[in-house]
C-alpha cells in the first residue's frame, strides 16, 4: 500500500485522473469516444492529438533538465522549423507532392538539430550558463524565422503536409503517433543504453563524473541536440495544424509549459534523476487542463487565472516537503506523550 504512495508517479497520475473525472462529471460526453470511418474521435482523442507538440518539446526538456540545464529556445526553434518547411513547400512547383513535403520536413528538422547543437556548443564547450545560452536563440530565433519567410505569414495548401497534424493512421491521430514514437525511441535510448544513468550522474555531480571518466561534454551537448531536434518536429506539427508558418505565434510560451510538464512529472530542476513517464503524465495534465478550461466555459479572460490556480494546487499536492511535514505532524500527534522527537537534518552538500 505505502509503496504505491511513494512511487513518484503516484501523485501526477492522481492529478490527471482527478482532472478527467471532474470533466466527465461536468460533461459526460467528455469521455465518449466515437468511431467514424474507422477513426477515433472525441474530446479525449483531441487531447492526445493536441498534446503532440508539447509532448515532443517536454521530452527534450526532460533530458536537458536532467543535465542541470534548461532550454528556453524551443519555442523559437519551432518557429524556425515551421518557417523552413513551409518556405520550401511554398516555393516548390507542386506543394501537394509527398516527396516535396518529405524533403521540406527533413530539412526543417536538420536545421533544428543544428540550432540545438549551437545551444549545446555554448553550454558544454564555451561554458555559458544554460539559461543565458538558450536565451540568445529564444530572442533571435523568431527573427531568423521572419527572415526566412520574408516577414510574411507563409500559408500553404498541401494535402500531405496537413496530414501531419490532422491525418489518421491505425485509427489514431498521426500527430499523437509521432509523440508515441518519440517517447518509445527516447525511452529505449536512455534506458537500453547507458546514456540515462550517465546523464543522471552528470546532472547530480558533474565533477565526480568527470573524475570517473564520464564524457560529460558530449552528454550535455547531446541533450541540447535532442531538445532542438524534437522542437523542430513539434514546429512541423504546429505549422501543419494552422497550415501556416507564423513566426510570431508558433510555440509562444511553450518552453514554460514544457518546464512545467517536466516538474509536474517529478523531475527536479536541480538535475539528476529524470522520469520520461513522469513528463508524459505532466504533459497530459497540462493538455487536459487546457481542454477543461474550454469545456467548463471559463471565459478566455479568466482562463489564465484558472490555469494558474489549478497548477498551484497540483504543485502543492506534489510537494514532498509539504507531505513530509504533514506526515511528521500526524506522527507527532499520534505519538504525543511518547516524547519522540525526530529532527531530520538535511545534509549540507
Amino acid at each position, binding site marked *: 500500500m505505502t509503496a504505491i504512495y511513494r512511487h513518484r508517479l503516484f501523485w501526477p497520475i492522481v492529478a490527471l485522473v482527478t482532472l478527467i473525472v471532474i470533466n466527465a462529471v461536468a460533461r459526460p460526453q467528455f469521455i465518449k469516444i466515437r468511431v467514424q470511418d474507422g477513426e477515433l474521435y472525441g474530446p479525449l482523442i483531441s487531447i492526445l492529438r493536441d498534446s503532440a507538440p508539447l509532448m515532443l518539446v517536454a521530452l527534450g526538456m526532460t533530458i536537458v533538465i536532467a543535465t542541470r540545464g534548461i532550454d528556453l529556445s524551443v519555442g523559437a526553434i519551432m518557429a524556425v522549423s515551421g518557417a523552413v518547411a513551409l518556405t520550401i513547400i511554398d516555393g516548390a512547383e507542386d506543394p501537394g507532392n509527398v516527396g516535396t513535403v518529405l524533403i521540406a520536413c527533413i530539412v526543417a528538422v536538420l536545421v533544428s538539430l543544428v540550432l540545438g547543437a549551437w545551444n549545446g556548443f555554448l553550454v558544454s564547450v564555451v561554458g555559458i550558463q544554460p539559461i543565458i545560452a538558450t536565451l540568445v536563440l529564444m530572442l533571435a530565433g523568431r527573427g531568423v524565422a521572419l527572415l526566412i519567410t520574408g516577414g510574411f505569414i507563409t500559408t500553404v495548401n498541401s494535402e500531405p503536409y496537413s496530414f501531419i497534424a490532422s491525418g489518421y493512421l491505425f485509427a489514431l491521430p498521426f500527430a499523437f503517433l509521432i509523440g508515441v514514437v518519440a517517447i518509445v525511441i527516447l525511452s529505449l535510448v536512455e534506458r537500453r543504453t547507458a*546514456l540515462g544513468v550517465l546523464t*543522471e*550522474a552528470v546532472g547530480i*555531480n558533474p*565533477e565526480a563524473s568527470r*573524475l*570517473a571518466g564520464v564524457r560529460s561534454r558530449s552528454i550535455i551537448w547531446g541533450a541540447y541536440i535532442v531538445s532542438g531536434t524534437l522542437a523542430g518536429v513539434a514546429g512541423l506539427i504546429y505549422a501543419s495544424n494552422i497550415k501556416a508558418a507564423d513566426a510570431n505565434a508558433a510555440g509562444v510560451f511553450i518552453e514554460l509549459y514544457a518546464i512545467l510538464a517536466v516538474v509536474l512529472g517529478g523531475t527536479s530542476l536541480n538535475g539528476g534523476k529524470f522520469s520520461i513517464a513522469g513528463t508524459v503524465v505532466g504533459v497530459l495534465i497540462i493538455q487536459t487542463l487546457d481542454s477543461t478550461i474550454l469545456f467548463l466555459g471559463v471565459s478566455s479572460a479568466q482562463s489564465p487565472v484558472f490555469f494558474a490556480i489549478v497548477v498551484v494546487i497540483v504543485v502543492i499536492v506534489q510537494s514532498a516537503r509539504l507531505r513530509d511535514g504533514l506526515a511528521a505532524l500526524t506522527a507527532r500527534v499520534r505519538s504525543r506523550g511518547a516524547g519522540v522527537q525526530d529532527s531530520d537534518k538535511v545534509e549540507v552538500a
Partner: protein
Amino acid sequence: MDGVRPLLELTGATVRFGADAALDHVDFRLYPGEVHSLMGENGAGKSTLIKAITGALAMDEGVLRLAGEAVAFATPHEAQLAGISTVYQEIELLPNLSVAENICLGREPRRGAVMSRRLMRERAGAALAELGLELDPASLLGTHSVAVQQLVAIARAISADVRVLVLDEPTSSLDLDEVAELFRVIRELKARGVAILFVSHFLDQVYELADRITVLRDGELVGEYLTGELLRIDLVQKMLGRTVSELRSRERAAEDDAEAGAGAILRARGVTVAHGVVEADVELAEGEVLGVAGLLGSGRTSLAHALTGVARLESGEIRVEGESVRLDSPRHAITLGVVYSSENRRRDGIVAELSVLDNITLALQSERGVFRRIPPARRRELAASWVDALDIRPPDLDRPVGTLSGGNQQKVLLARLLALSPRLLVLDEPTRGIDVGAKVEIQNLVGELADNGMSVVFISAELEEVLRVGDRVAVMRDGRIVETVVAADVTTDSLLALVAQPGEDEE
C-alpha cells in the same frame, strides 16, 4: 588570563551532518584582547566551528555565550549586530559595487530616510585609512586585485562595532607586505580589546601572531595551548594525531631490488602545476606503495591531480610504463590505467543520489562507452562481488550512496576505481573522516592490492598511516618534494620533523 572572563565561550558544541559528527562536544573560549588560532587539518571541524559561532550553521547541541550571556544566532547578520564580524577565505563582496558601498553594505548611513553617499564615503575612507590602504572609496571593487579586495573585506569587518573578529585564512591571497600591514592592524585591534579568532595554514604566521592555540582533529577538541608553550613539532603532531590500531603487518614483498629498470610504472620528472607543485620527481615501481606526507597546502593534492590528468602540467614530463604521455583529462589517465580518488569524497567522489550499483559501475561503463551498456545481470553481479569483497554495508545495491556512512562511501569509490583494473591507483586521503574499523580495512586493502602488483600513491595527513602503508614516503613542503625516504628507515617522529620543518626558502 585568570580572572578575566572570556568574551566568547562555546561549550559542548556539536554539529551533525547525517550520521557523521562534524563537531563533537567541542569547547572553545576567546578572551578580549587576544589572538587565538584555530588549528587542524582538512575536515577537523574548523570551518564548522566558525560557522557555529557566526550563526551560519545551527548547532545540534551546545551553548554559545557572548560576554557571559547565552546567545543563539539564527543568521550571520544577527551575529554581526552582536559585534561578531567574519572575513572568509573566499571574498564575499560584490565586485560591481564601489569600495565604499561594499564596506557599508547592509548598514548604509542614512540621513532621514535617504542614504547619504557622503557619509558612506567618509566612513569607508576612515576604515581604509586604518588599514593603511590608499584607495579611492568610489572606485569599483572589481577593478582591484584579489589581495586588495581581501583587505577591503577586512576593512568592512572592522568598520562596524566589532568585538569579535573572525579571520578565516585571511592571508592566503596576500603578499608579504600586505600580510605585515594586516598583522599591524590585527595587533592594533587586539590592543583595543577586540577578541580575534585567526585561522591560517601558515605555521609561521600563527606563531608570530597568536597568543593561544586550539587544536581540533576529526571534529573533536584536542586541546587548548599557550603558543609560547607549544613547540611547533608538538602542534603538528597534535593536528595530525596518531591512531593506534592493529594492522596486519605487511611484509614488504621481498624486494630483491628488481625495481631497477623496466619495473617503473610511473616516472615523473620536474612536474610543475600552477599554485601547487614545483619540480616534483616521482618514481613508482610495479607493486610499490608510495606514501605522500605533508601538511595541508603542501601540494600533496596538486601532485595527485598532476599525476592523474585532473590538472594540466605547466612543465615537466610524465612517463607511464616508459611512454611519455600528456594527460589532458581524467578520462585519458583512466585509459592508461591511472585512476584517482579525490580527498573530497562528497564533492568530487560519490554521486550521492545514484545507487551503490550505479556508482560502482559508473567509471567502467563510461570507459566502455554510452552504447556498449554492461548487461544488467553482469552489472549486478560485478557490483555485488565488489560489495562482498570490500564488505560494503549495508550490502544493498539499490540504496542511494549518499545514505551510506563515510567509510562505506569510500569503499564504493574504491570499488568504482578497482573495477577498472587499474595499474596505478592514486588515493588522496582515502581514510579521512571515516571510522577506525573502515580505516584499517582500507589500509589492509591497499597492502593486498600492492602485493598483487598494483602500484599505489597513498596520500594522508596521518603520518603513522603513511609509514605503515607506504614502502617509501615522499615528504612535501611548499609544493616541493623535499625528501623521499624508505618507510622502514624512519619513525613517526623523524617523519614529523621533516614535515613540520619551517621552509628554508620562504621569507
